[in-house]
């Protein structure tokens, strides 16, 4: 898609040129380091990163909205969206480029944590399967959360509003899954549970790559990005 990679590259490099990018990365690495030392690097415990990955949901629920909030909201606020949308690139290319740029930044944040896996491998003999599955799960979860954040960022020119809307939606989805499963009878209790990303990540952390989980994250991310592109397109028809 014409322009997608250009936009993704600009977006990724922008994260390293603004203080927000460095703050998010520092927060990310501090929390991940803390979680690794506190839960995984304990003498006498099994050599796994299961707790490390399970804890990631709590880290990403704050970090992903912080990464995604500026993607389109900032463009709306400063007016840079106008030269972008009047250039010969489609709304889908703009949204995909933004999404890939943000996902790339999340990847850059995640990359240093591979050191933890290397430390664990050096000190003990963990099964590499669950570690691979865990990283895959984190990447898919991040993609889903970033796509949701991108949708909210396309709807407003306020980064704060985009951040809060994404955070609240992610928390409501999770809380809704818990309450829904408690109050609804079978088989309806499975509906809110299907939206629980925490449960899906728990499976990845165990080393279980369930295609239904992979499909959920991929389809939801594509769908949310598609909605964001639709929001940009409908702006022309206001």
């Amino acid at each position: 898609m014409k322009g997608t990679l250009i936009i993704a590259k600009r977006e990724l490099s922008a994260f390293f040129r603004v203080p927000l990018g460095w703050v998010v990365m520092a927060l990310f690495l501090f929390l991940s380091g803390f979680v690794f030392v506190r839960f995984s690097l304990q003498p006498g415990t099994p050599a796994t990163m299961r707790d490390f990955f399970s804890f990631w949901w709590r880290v990403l629920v704050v970090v992903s909205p912080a990464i995604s909030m500026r993607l389109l909201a900032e463009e709306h606020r400063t007016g840079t969206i106008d030269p972008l949308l009047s250039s010969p690139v489609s709304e889908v290319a703009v949204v995909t480029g933004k999404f890939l740029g943000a996902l790339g930044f999340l990847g850059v944040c995640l990359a240093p944590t591979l050191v933890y896996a290397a430390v664990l491998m050096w000190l003990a003999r963990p099964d590499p399967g669950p570690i691979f599955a865990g990283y895959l799960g984190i990447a898919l979860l991040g993609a889903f959360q970033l796509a949701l954040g991108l949708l909210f960022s396309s709807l407003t020119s306020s980064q704060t509003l985009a951040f809060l809307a994404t955070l609240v939606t992610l928390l409501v989805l999770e809380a809704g899954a818990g309450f829904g499963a408690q109050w609804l009878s079978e088989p309806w209790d499975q509906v809110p549970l299907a939206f629980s990303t925490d449960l899906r990540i728990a499976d990845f952390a165990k080393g279980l790559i369930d295609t239904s989980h992979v499909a959920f994250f991929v389809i939801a991310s594509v769908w949310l990005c598609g909605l964001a592109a639709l929001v940009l397109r409908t702006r022309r028809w206001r």
Partner: protein
Amino acid sequence: MVELSGVTKDYGRFRAVSDVSLAIQPGRVTGLLGPNGAGKSTIIRMITCLLAPTQGSVSVCGFDTVTESAKARASIGYLPEFAPLYPEMTARGYLRFRAGLAGLRGKAAAAAVGRALERCWLGEVADRRISAMSKGFRQRVGLAGAILHDPRVLILDEPTTGLDPTQIRETRALLRSLALERVLLLSSHILPEVEATCDQIVIIARGVVRASGTPKDLLRASAQPGYLVLPGRLTSAEQLEQLAVAIAGLAGVSGVAADATLGAGGLRVSSTESGGDLREPIAVLAAQQGVLLTELQMLRPSLEQVFMRVIQEAA
């Protein structure tokens, strides 16, 4: 060519643009002039494919801006008002990004960026962050971004905002050279700017085209020149009265009125369309009456007067 046919744009119940038809030709600078809220930006946003008209159609180089939007956009270079840019980027980085969006790659992109930097006098700040630039430099980076891919249609919203007088003069010259081979539409509410730069002016008020033509056409159609006549101090009241009557009798004079604000005995003469230059006949009459004139001046109507009249009529 840019063509608007019966274009109307509604924002809910508010009609921002009403039944506008325009054909903007290449080879000249066309100015879209109007007060704030007149509908200029809405028209520009419809031409640049950022808004779809509620009724009517807009075509750019033969491509409909709604059904063939991507092709239309490929022909457009657009500088929005206040030149929105990414402050964390350098001028060169930003232009490379814009070149990529326009589909330029590799050497072609590098050459286009170098050309745009040079044309907009940005060589010395090419690698400086946009956030550290003055308003004038930012405006020039925005302009460079718009002309970078050599578009056939150039749409500039307030292109000289923030520039100093030397830069304004240079930018005007650049716009004139750019207009030679493309459609160039600029929007402004600064009258002298439009008067100095544009070959064609379209005046918009309350979403409707109120007047259009070359500056000369607009001036000619709108108002005839007036004359200021100031006799010497020794002129008697009787001589002054006789002079006023004689001037009023001249062919092409529509009225003579005393105007004390011009000085003692000052006369303000208004003329009709067929009058031509009346300075010489007035001077001859004054000499015949034995009146020595200290000042005789033709007062040409300004575009500002035309603009104000059009706006008042629209109100």
